[in-house]
């Protein structure tokens, strides 16, 4: 749909073409008309309703700030650059916008990304024209996660364009093509608000994603520019698109006929706030739930029907040995890798993304629309086909067995965490202690190797904790900045950031500066096993020469043995090193107390390694000092 909206507001297709395209993408006529109605004010040539626009005269930067304020921006995330100068001048007269500075472009994007993921609002970030290459790793992460961001840079002065001049290359904007939904170099200062409005619109339309605008610096400084500013309500597109009713009914019949259905959930569930309806649907049919890799917890992970990740299905099938005969995918991107037990199983896929649904996987039913509406439609349809008593009779055994199985497995995990001890610290004990002491509605921002480390210990639910991360893109260097953005979005919830030592060393120290400057009380916990564990496993266990000879070329981090609390101390952030399990509880207590007092905290927890090469400390030792013939 995003393509159709983009083409419509760009004037490349007509209203009729838009409706035809929506129909071709399986949207119902009602949904298509609803979408058209909401987009229509932005179609070129459309009359604007009264109160939707106002005229403003100022510098181009003034118009930029006026428009992002209308779009609901609370924060202006920036990193330093001379190109931010026009905005600095304009900020003097726009005190309603709080500036938050980062020291590097990649980190400013991750801060905006964390803010957007936690708030559900669009994040706006600005950085220098030459900061684009730095910014792209987290731009890529945001694109993979479909996070709504509007990013902005200055650009070479108008009279230098196309001359390979200072701080310029031809077609800068093309470098962002793969990581943005839409991008534009704006050369008309009087149209800046129009482009910004469009950038917000495109970033917001589900599935979301980053947009990026560049404007020559001289134009940003230009004064006396008169332009139309668009009111906030003109930017809202209701995304509660109705799915096709007949398709809902067909899918409901599939589910009712299924003797052993499975619900597979992904991030679109959280992005559309569909969790409550989905829980109701799962409970109605006692469908066990599997979590697709996601930067949210898309189903309450301590719910009796929640199994875990896909590999958990096998043990569930030991207690309920009826082969899976229907898979309901809610908001996860296919394909599912190598799940042999799903071969020839009919798949129902519910998604907001008409462009990708069914693209890689044959479907028995495709439900395109807002996931909350789809879930509620299925509930209604199922209830119209079967009585509560009939449903209960059909599902009672599965419900009871699944609940008993998962309650016992979950209790064993918590016990394993409680009983793990020693030096270095076993990671399950760290998670157990954190869970025990953190607030019950805390936010966990994680950039660990694998999601299960948090999913198996913290209870994520609408009335419980909230999980944000790890990104689908997996480009390391996101989590510390993101956790600062999360805390800005949710200042009244405790925020704990879980990082690996390897991930933290991907240039994330920079974001400690932002945390310290603005008193952003986040506890950053480094699970410091002095190793890139994932790569160590992958490289050393393949039976190749490196594994055979126990040579760890790229994963060992123990030399130098980084003390992360000293990095934090450089930014005036207190911290503690924890070497054994007995030190955990008091150290966490001190950390959380520091958060309550309004300052960030760093916990460097020395954790135990496991798996291929755990014992290997060999690395390709080399000393430049030893190579010298002159000791200078």
């Amino acid at each position, binding site marked *: 749909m995003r393509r159709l909206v983009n083409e419509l507001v760009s004037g490349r297709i007509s209203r009729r073409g838009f409706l035809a395209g929506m129909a071709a993408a399986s949207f119902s006529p009602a949904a298509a008309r609803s979408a058209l109605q909401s987009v229509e004010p932005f179609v070129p040539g459309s009359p604007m309703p009264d109160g939707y626009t106002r005229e403003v005269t100022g510098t181009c930067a003034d118009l930029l700030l006026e428009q992002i304020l209308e779009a609901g921006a609370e924060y202006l995330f920036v990193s330093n650059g001379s190109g931010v100068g026009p905005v600095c001048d304009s900020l003097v007269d726009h005190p309603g916008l709080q500036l938050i500075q980062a020291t590097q472009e990649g980190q400013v994007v991750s801060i905006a990304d964390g803010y957007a993921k936690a708030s559900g609002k669009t994040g706006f970030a600005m950085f220098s024209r030459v900061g684009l290459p730095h910014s792209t790793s987290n731009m890529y992460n945001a694109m993979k996660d479909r996070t709504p961001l509007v990013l902005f840079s200055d650009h070479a002065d108008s009279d230098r364009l196309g001359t390979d001049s200072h701080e310029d290359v031809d077609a800068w904007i093309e470098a962002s093509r793969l990581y943005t939904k839409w991008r534009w170099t704006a050369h008309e200062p009087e149209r800046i608000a129009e482009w910004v409005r469009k950038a917000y619109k495109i970033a917001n339309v589900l599935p979301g994603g980053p947009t990026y605008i560049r404007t020559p610096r001289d134009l940003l400084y230009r004064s006396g520019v008169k332009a139309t500013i668009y009111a906030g309500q003109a930017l809202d597109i209701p995304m509660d698109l109705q799915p096709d009713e007949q398709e809902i009914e067909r899918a409901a019949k599939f589910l009712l006929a299924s003797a052993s259905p499975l619900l597979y959930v992904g991030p679109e569930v959280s992005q559309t706030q569909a969790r409550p309806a989905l829980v109701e649907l799962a409970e109605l049919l006692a469908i066990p739930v599997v979590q697709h890799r996601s930067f949210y917890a898309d189903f309450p992970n301590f719910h009796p029907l929640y199994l*875990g*990740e*896909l*590999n*958990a*299905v*096998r*043990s569930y099938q*030991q207690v309920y040995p009826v082969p899976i005969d229907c898979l309901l995918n809610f908001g996860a991107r296919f394909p*599912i*890798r*190598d*799940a*042999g*037990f799903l071969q020839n199983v009919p798949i129902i896929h519910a998604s907001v993304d008409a462009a990708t649904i069914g693209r890689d996987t044959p479907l028995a039913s495709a439900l395109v629309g807002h996931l909350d509406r789809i879930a509620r439609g299925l509930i209604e349809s199922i209830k119209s086909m079967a009585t509560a008593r009939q449903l209960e009779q059909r599902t009672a055994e599965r419900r009871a067995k699944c609940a008993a*199985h998962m309650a*016992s*497995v979950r*209790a*064993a*995990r918590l*016990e*394993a*965490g409680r*009983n*793990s001890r*020693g030096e270095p610290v*076993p*990671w*399950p004990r760290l*998670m157990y202690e954190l869970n025990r002491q953190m607030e019950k509605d805390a936010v966990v921002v994680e950039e660990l190797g*694998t*999601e*299960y*480390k948090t999913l*198996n*210990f913290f209870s994520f639910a609408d009335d419980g904790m909230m999980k944000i991360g790890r990104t689908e893109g997996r480009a390391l260097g996101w989590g510390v900045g993101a956790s600062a953005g999360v805390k800005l979005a949710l200042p009244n919830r405790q925020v704990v950031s879980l990082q690996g030592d390897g991930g933290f060393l991907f240039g994330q120290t920079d974001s400690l500066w932002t945390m310290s400057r603005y008193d952003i009380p986040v506890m950053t916990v480094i699970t410091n096993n002095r190793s890139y564990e*994932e790569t160590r*496993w*992958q490289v*050393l*266990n393949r039976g190749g020469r490196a*594994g055979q000879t126990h040579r760890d070329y790229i994963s060992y981090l123990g030399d130098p043995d980084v003390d992360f609390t000293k990095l934090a101390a450089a930014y005036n952030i207190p911290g503690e090193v924890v070497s054994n399990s007995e030190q955990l509880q008091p150290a966490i207590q001190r950390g959380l107390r520091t958060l309550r007092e309004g300052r960030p905290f760093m916990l460097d927890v020395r954790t*135990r*390694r*496991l*798996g*291929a*090469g*755990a*014992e290997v400390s060999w690395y390709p030792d080399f000393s430049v000092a030893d190579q010298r013939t002159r000791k200078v």
Partner: protein
Amino acid sequence: MKIAHEWNIAVALLPMGILIGAGAALGQAPFPEGPGRDTLLQVCTQCHAPNRILEADATADEWQFILYDMIARGAPVHEDDVDVLEKYLIDNFAVK
């Protein structure tokens, strides 16, 4: 510590879910009789080949660490079976 290598494949692949269905006909695996054996066959061998357990070179402390780590990662051991399985692994496979 040889054990590190023995456990790696499943540790690395478990989250990808690609070992589902890998629990081959393990009923005949040469594991000693005793309490805990059934749990081991039902749970551990979902992801690990028998020789990864039989040939592991781990002390009692290391077996406990591995078992708790596996459970924490998602090995579906029921609460009542943890102690029994731990004792079985240590009694039969721990390096003295």
